């Protein structure tokens, strides 16, 4: 048993729902007890879907367990087929139905429906959401495209000289982190390269579309967590190569263009030259110099974490001080990336471990999921959300892709806005004696919480609004004063969480009065950092009393 407070991933049948809901003409009959229908609200509330997910649940209860749950399942399949007339049917079990072993696949087959029926075996006690989505997509692709496979060993026919190269885009799903906008951005990019998109799947695809996946020359894998397994099978079966680079960030987008051009046999130079992102210039502009070496902790699904770290290090000049993922299936890729930045990879799905790692790394910015947003808020560190699990805020009304040139612009803003702007930092030094800038001023964009060290008082509300509680997002453009006080919260020790050094200290650390006084002469927005660094320095040397000399020794030690 694993003690779980929050989970990064839903159970695997929710992954299957993401595939079914993304597609047209597919229905999913899920053998599940009453209550499992909660999963519908993920789609209708978080993603604001205008239609119910195409899922029929058997919703069995205790009294059904005494009679015949298998019969109930068969009735549900029959009724769902008659009512919804899908072109393909997925059948499977949720965690509880897995235990009663009714064999949904066999039961559905026995009904002899005139459409393809895809049985799903998604072991709920071993696997999770992304695995479930990948497995479901793979099974669907195999079942629907399989009959169109050429005989084993036959070579792909060469493309005609006048035919444009064609690709499929694989991986976008319902409830995906910005999938809707990524598809739009990448489709445009492929179009500019002269590549025709054969099928986008699963998002928006019909079973008939899946059946003709093999007609494309190659595959673009947008989200390996979901499409890698299917792409591997398409490679083996149809000889379709697939892209390895996920175009998140300026550099990755350029690499992606080169990779696609190679697969398509075309010249990438015009597109590489023609469609620059603003992000590189913004990164080079003088206002961004203050970003240099900012300590950043990155955690998310493997794709977004690896991409986020690369952007942070290479495109913003941050220092990556932590990198991790909850995607165990892609742990190897994250380990390889972590090695590049010289950090210990964190592979875990326990958010408390992530919280501890963040606290220990003393980052100045956290790039994470909604859970790290809360952790960061508690620690008083700015945070940007870069990955699922999704929240209603991850489905913005505006166009906000993560991929391609526009995605790079969006990410520049996403990563930088939680921090203070460069010019503001200078003005702050000038105005630091202003009464409004005192160290205890409540930061505006981190909410009252940062100064109290608690989550915002939504908890005090007797009416927590389900699923969609609005909480302030870092990233709204702050006024100068607001930004100032925000940074104050970042740097001060207002949060009651003891610094890691002090907490771990076997000897209680004490500040001499004159050292404490000297500390207060340091601008408040870096005072917290100075305090933490000094305490860490003292701790490492076994000192119990911090004097003025210790303070300056530490300053010299940590100065870059």
């Amino acid at each position, binding site marked *: *048993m*694993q*003690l*779980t*407070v*929050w*989970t990064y*991933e*839903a*159970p695997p*049948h929710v992954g299957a729902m993401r595939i079914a809901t993304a597609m047209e003409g597919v229905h999913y009959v899920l053998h599940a*007890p*009453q*209550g*499992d*229908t*909660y*999963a*519908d*609200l*993920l789609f*209708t*509330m978080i993603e*604001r879907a*205008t239609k*119910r997910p195409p899922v*029929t649940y*058997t*919703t*069995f*209860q*205790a009294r059904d*367990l005494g009679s015949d749950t298998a019969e109930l399942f068969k009735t549900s399949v029959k*009724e769902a087929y008659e*009512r919804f007339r899908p072109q393909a049917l997925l059948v499977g079990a*949720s965690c*509880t139905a897995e*235990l*009663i072993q009714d064999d949904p696949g066999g039961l559905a087959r026995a009904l002899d429906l005139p459409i393809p029926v895809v049985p799903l075996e998604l072991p*709920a*006690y*071993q696997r999770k959401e992304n695995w479930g989505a990948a497995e479901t997509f793979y099974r669907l692709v195999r079942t629907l495209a399989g009959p169109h496979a050429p005989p084993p060993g036959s070579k792909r026919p060469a493309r005609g000289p006048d035919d444009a190269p064609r690709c499929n885009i694989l991986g976008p799903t319902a409830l995906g982190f910005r999938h809707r906008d990524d598809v739009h951005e990448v489709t445009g990019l492929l179009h500019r390269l002269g590549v025709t998109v054969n099928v986008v799947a699963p998002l928006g695809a019909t079973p008939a579309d899946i059946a003709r996946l093999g007609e494309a020359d190659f595959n673009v894998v947008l989200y390996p967590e979901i499409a890698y397994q299917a792409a591997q099978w398409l490679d083996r079966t149809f000889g379709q190569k697939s892209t390895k680079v996920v175009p998140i960030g300026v550099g990755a987008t350029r690499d992606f263009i080169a990779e696609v051009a190679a697969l398509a046999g075309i010249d990438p130079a015009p597109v590489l030259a023609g469609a620059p992102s603003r992000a590189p210039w913004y990164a080079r502009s003088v206002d961004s110099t203050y970003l240099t070496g900012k300590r950043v902790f990155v955690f998310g699904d493997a794709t977004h974490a690896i991409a986020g770290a690369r952007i942070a290090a290479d495109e913003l000049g941050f220092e990556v001080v932590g990198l991790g993922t909850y995607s165990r299936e892609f742990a190897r890729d994250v380990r390889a990336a972590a090695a590049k930045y010289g950090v210990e990879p964190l592979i875990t799905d326990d958010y408390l471990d992530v919280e501890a790692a963040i606290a220990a790394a003393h980052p100045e910015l956290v790039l994470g999921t*909604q*859970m790290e947003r*809360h952790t960061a808020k508690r620690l008083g560190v700015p945070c940007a959300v870069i990955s699922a*699990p999704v*929240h209603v805020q991850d489905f913005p009304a505006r166009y906000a892709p993560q991929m391609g040139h526009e995605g790079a612009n969006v990410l520049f803003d996403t990563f930088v806005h939680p921090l203070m702007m460069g010019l503001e930092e200078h003005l702050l030094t000038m105005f630091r004696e202003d009464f409004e800038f005192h160290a205890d001023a409540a930061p505006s964009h981190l909410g009252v919480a940062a100064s109290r060290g*608690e*989550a915002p008082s*939504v*908890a005090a509300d*007797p*009416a*927590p*609004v*389900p*699923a*969609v*509680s609005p*909480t302030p997002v870092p990233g709204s453009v702050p006024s100068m004063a607001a930004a100032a006080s925000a940074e104050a919260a970042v740097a001060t020790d207002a949060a009651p969480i003891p610094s890691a050094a002090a907490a771990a200290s076997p000897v209680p650390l004490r500040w001499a009065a004159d050292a404490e006084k000297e500390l207060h002469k340091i601008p408040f927005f870096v005072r917290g950092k100075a305090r933490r660094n000094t305490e860490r320095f003292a701790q490492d040397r076994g000192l119990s009393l911090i004097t003025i000399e210790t303070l300056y020794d530490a300053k010299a030690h940590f100065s870059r």
Partner: protein
Amino acid sequence: MNAVVAPVANAGCVDAPVLYERGQREVFCGLTGIVWLHRKIQDAFFLVVGSRTCAHLLQSAAGVMIFAEPRFATAVIEERDLAGLADANSELDRVVTRLIERRPDIRLLFLVGSCPSEVIKLDLDRAATRLSQSFAPRVRIRAWSGSGLDTTFTQGEDACLAALVPDMPATEADAPPSLLVVGALAEVVEDQMARLFAEIGIERVRFFPPRRSDDLPPVGPGTRLLLAQPFLAETARLLEKRGATRLTAPFPLGVEGTAGWFGAAARAFGVDEARFDAAIAPRAERARTALARHRERLAGKSLFFFPDSQLEVPLARFAARELGMRLVEVGTPYLHRGHLAAELALLPPGTMLSEGQNVDNQLDRCRAAQPDLTVCGLGLANPLEAEGLATKWSIELLFTPVHGFEQAADLAELFARPLVRRSRLKV
């Protein structure tokens, strides 16, 4: 009392036929009750013994990560527990020990059963007894089931409160009659009620569940039981078994329901009629005045309830009689005729009642009726809005303080808001 409490007509829906449906039920399981119970009993922790689905349900239903570290968690059963590689009981002991070490503020720990824990027949009652012995006297450990196999949504609260009944002390043998109000209410509502009971001269009033787990009210033959929520069948049964007498009353929703509810208590305690009216009438009048504005907007509008919380019948009674709304269908997951007797008597005759659910059939009926307002769960609300139907999330009717006189207008406002919003939007 007659001044404010309408005489119960013999008509109503007491013997009305009910459409009983079986099929897909678009409802939460009882685990969802943890979302409000953990706010109510503030030194209790709820440990669900279940699957990743249970954990995911809780975080999705609670609003993803509202709380920094909430007082609920899930012990997720893994493959090795099922394969017998790990002894489920010793695994549970390990998880509970870790949890109690981490949260020294916990005084009461609930082991909450789930669908998987029931199917694998993990005996959480025995586990609770065993663990209680190891952690006594610091932490009490009790068990209840929020499994979807046994409980629908609010029945989770019933199961939780029922698990606490055996711990309630017995009243003194010669104790004078006392009133026990049962069902989780917002504190502000409890305080209002306590003041009103005092004003009409009922002094010995306790609320269950208490705000602190070690403050359980006593129960015994002198206890008069007044249910504040319509979904507490098992809790009421156990309290009656311990000698309490249940008072028949409508539920304190709306002016009429609240007046009838206080009236039932007043009759049981022999409260003088003049004193009752002096306290209740001005409150009822103030609430009626506050309601009037919403009634103007809602009168004549048609209303359709999908089953959700078992609050549907009292809410429908309120909407029909105090807001002048027309009831198309009142769906409820479970219709407890005993506890709802006073409510059914007040429902307009001929109201269509349905129990259980076949969600696709019910959606067909709803679409055919095109009601002005549909009360439904979160899975259905946006799809129905997209089809052009105005909806009210049923869960908000449960999470918002709506009981009592002072909240009657707030309750009306919840029904009015979707319609007001539609009239404002020009897009």
